[in-house]
């Protein structure tokens, strides 16, 4: 299972490095989202700086949708399920591999977005450890849920619209907890983030476990 996970993750990341869709499309998309938030909330840094944690994570959520869709698009387009099924890979391995590839790309994206909120919103970075921990745990949870619902939606004619509807409500706790953890860190009180980090870890562990079990049957159905 882990062997397959490494194999799949390596394959996905290699494809990503070659195609640079993440770099050339998802990254710019996330920056555009940050800019639009700025336009929507106005130029006042006293408004923008306190909101930066939340805006950061909303941008991450939206980017996750794109990353997940891309993750299934590379599996020979329309025959995504068939190709994966025929590969003979362990489904749990496919899940873990794809989820970690998505997570790795998101982490890179988050590094960029962090610079973005600092520059654009004047967020004052502090509590780096908490920031990184929240990113790590939150991203794993997002990638797990995304990959899981991604396979549900893949192969369905309505996948582009169905995926966001399934994905976004489920990850509401991640948005909440990660935002609060970041708020605490940015406010200079990283110790307040502890409980929120726990929520993120519990969420990630839970959905990674569910995905490992449920991915196989979901891949076979449809």
């Amino acid at each position, binding site marked *: 299972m882990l062997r*397959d996970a490494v*194999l799949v993750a390596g*394959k996905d990341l*290699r*494809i990503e490095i*070659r*195609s640079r869709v993440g770099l050339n499309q998802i990254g710019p998309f996330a920056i555009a989202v940050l800019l639009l938030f700025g336009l929507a909330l106005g130029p006042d840094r006293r408004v923008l700086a306190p909101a930066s944690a939340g805006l950061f994570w909303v941008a991450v959520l939206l980017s996750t949708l794109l990353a997940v869709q891309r993750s299934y698009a*590379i599996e*020979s*387009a*329309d*025959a995504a399920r*068939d*190709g994966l*099924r*025929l*590969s*003979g*890979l362990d*489904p749990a391995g496919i899940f873990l591999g794809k989820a970690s590839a998505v997570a790795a790309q998101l982490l890179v994206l988050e590094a960029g977005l962090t610079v973005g909120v600092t520059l654009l919103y004047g967020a004052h970075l502090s509590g780096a450890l908490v920031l990184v921990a929240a990113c790590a745990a939150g991203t794993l949870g997002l990638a797990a849920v995304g990959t899981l619902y991604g396979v549900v939606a893949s192969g369905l004619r309505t996948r582009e619209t169905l995926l966001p509807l399934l994905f976004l409500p489920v990850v509401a706790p991640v948005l909440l907890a990660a935002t609060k953890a970041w708020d605490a860190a940015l406010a200079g009180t990283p110790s307040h983030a502890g409980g929120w980090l726990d929520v993120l870890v519990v969420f990630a562990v839970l959905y990674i476990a569910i995905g490992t079990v449920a991915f*196989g049957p979901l891949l*076979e159905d449809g």
Partner: protein
Amino acid sequence: MAPAVRLHEAVALAGRFPLLAGASLEVGEGEVVHLRGPNGAGKTSVLKVLAGLLAVHSGEATVLGRDLVADRRAVRREIGMLGHQSFLYEELTVEENLRFAVRANRGVVTGIRPVLEQFGFAGRLASIPVGRCSAGQQRRASLAVLVARGARLWLLDEPHAGLDQDGRDLLDELLTGARAAGRTVVFASHELERAEAIADRVVHLAGGRVVEPPEPTGASDSPAPSAQAARQTISGPAVPVTEDPAHVA
């Protein structure tokens, strides 16, 4: 010995449309079978069912001794499928694709070099991303994956399509070799002459079922013994529905 493939009254659906409407078929181990029939007869669906890609709604389906109704996943590592889709990753090179496919199937990667050479991917050509290969080359790459995975049962959907003359010769050679090596092959093809030369027997499909060959006048050279075996596996006497199609029980 149990047959490599056995379908009995298999029904498979796409939404509400019956792709297979009760197909029955047996293929012995080591047999090379040519699926023939008009477009939409269910050739691709038979192959997909055998690959475990399409669920059997009712009826029986056994492949390599495994019951596909109970578990569609069990046979995947032992079958190789060449479909309309290439299942190759466009961004990866031919060699990387092969390597991934073989490792995914728990195979040994050391065996892929001769396969690459066999399919004319020696040297530089093996390190070009598949997306930049010609259609014919992609088709060859798919065949190479099939061979490198070392499957016991080959399921080929229009394998001649998209191949140039050399490729076709290569394919025929491959199939002959596969038969000699005791592999079971089920393939669908419109290339009747080529198919006839390779196949042990022909199975006719129409309306999602295995049927008697249409217009017996055309098939003058009915291959005697194996054809009889084929008749036996045909789903009983073709249900006598002579009334108009709108007839309902």
